[in-house]
């Protein structure tokens, strides 16, 4: 599904990631951990074609990312839902419209207008009463949940979340984690980048997750110490 083979990524003259080989199999659940600045966000961006590796190969859905045209990258992103820590929305559109945005841009207007999936999804993330609000009116937790809803509305094969609980309290982080675990149970591949080890421990009670750790520019499978 997403495969990195001997991937390196350099930035500003220095190598940030080196010789990384990781395969995200369909239906798997991964955590990516490591200290701040280790390259977790860069790793995620490599996984959805926002960055190109300086060495090695990244294959998204069996296609080398370097061979993708710009429109192909856009189509790949419809199969990969992304939640960033600093979530960005179209501030002039209501929350419901923002969540439906992936449907709108992929030409599935009718589905967006029918609103069944949207209503169900907004109930699932607990934002039903905030549908008409504008994004700047949302709290940090509400923004994260709205971002998660937006990421999954097109039923992507993969969900990538970068510090999805970074701006929320413990209770909210547990709710978001539960939502991601539910998605995984629906067959979605999930990768969560986080430095929050307590979140990883909490997740391990709910789902069989592999933990990848970035250390010294390389990605290793973390041991039982987590």
């Amino acid at each position: 599904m997403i495969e990195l083979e001997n991937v390196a990524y350099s930035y500003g003259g220095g190598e940030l990631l080196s010789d990384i080989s990781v395969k995200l199999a369909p239906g798997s659940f991964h955590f990516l951990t490591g200290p701040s600045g280790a390259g977790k966000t860069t790793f995620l961006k490599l996984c959805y074609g926002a960055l190109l590796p300086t060495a090695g190969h990244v294959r998204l859905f069996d296609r080398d990312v370097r061979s993708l045209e710009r429109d192909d990258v856009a189509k790949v992103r419809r199969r990969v839902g992304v939640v960033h820590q600093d979530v960005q929305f179209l501030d002039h559109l209501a929350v419901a419209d923002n969540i439906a945005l992936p449907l709108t841009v992929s030409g599935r207007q009718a589905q967006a207008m029918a609103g069944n999936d949207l209503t169900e999804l907004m109930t699932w993330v607990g934002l039903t009463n905030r549908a008409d609000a504008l994004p700047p009116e949302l709290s940090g937790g509400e923004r994260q949940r709205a971002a998660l809803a937006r990421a999954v509305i097109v039923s992507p094969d993969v969900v990538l979340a970068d510090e999805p609980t970074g701006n929320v309290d413990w209770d909210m982080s547990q709710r978001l984690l539960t939502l991601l675990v539910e998605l995984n149970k629906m067959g979605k591949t999930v990768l969560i980048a986080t430095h929050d080890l307590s979140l990883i421990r909490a997740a391990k009670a709910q789902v069989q997750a592999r933990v990848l750790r970035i250390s010294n520019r390389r990605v290793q499978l973390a041991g039982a110490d987590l």
Partner: protein
Amino acid sequence: MFNLATLRALAAGDRQADRVVPPTGFTAQLTLFVSGAMAFLAVFALALSLASGRLADRWGDELARTATIRIVAPEDQRALQTTAALEVLSTTPGIAAARALSDEEQQALLAPWFGQDLPLDTLPVPRLIEIETTGQGFDPTSLRLRLAAEVPGAVLDDHGRWRAPLVSAAHRLRLLGWAVALLIIGAVAAMVTLAANAALAANAQVIAVLRLVGATDSYIANAFVRRFTIRALAGSAVGVVVGLLAVWLMPSGGDTPGFLTGLGFQGAGWLVPLLLPLICGAVALFATAYAARRALRTLT
């Protein structure tokens, strides 16, 4: 830059897609104003061009169909030579009619310079013969030779000497009018490109979000292109209407039309400025598409 499907999608519009770009902004007013002002100016440039064209045609036609003979002779021979010249003219191929001007007509011609009370009979004013030619015209060289032989005081003026520069000037003025109209359209393209660039730069976050959720570059570009095309269409339509009103309200020269009082449109000419909104819209479409594709290549 565009294929048929893209143009069809642009024409059909997409309300949902149109909403992804924030609706207001400085560039919106700028595009409307510039398109309106430029269309207004373009109406006048077209009026100038079309009026010059009419003037060139009229001068060309009227002067090409007429000629004048001056009889410069002592007073006692003037009537004789006039009659002789008229006889020569009556047998010259290509001449439809010829007649000597009366004293009153000659006085009327000189009145603007010497006043109404000019004592024409006391002055050595040459007699003028007005010639109207047939469609084929006459051969001025052979007529001059015949007149030189039979009417020594006759001087043929076929108007060519001063007709050519006048007609040429009018043609140049017509070209100038079209050049001004083209420059105005070019200025619209430049201004819309700048405005579109500014709008794209100001909406970098919007573009980042759209890309994150899987929008293609053409989807993003079309959202901007539609908006700027509609603004340019609307602005230039208003500019054209105001320009046409201004031209329509310009004073007419009545029975003595001059160049300035003849500035305007006639007949089907009134329809020509109606093409301006379409041209401005098309210019905005291509200018925005160019700016958007260029900007989207650089924005990551």
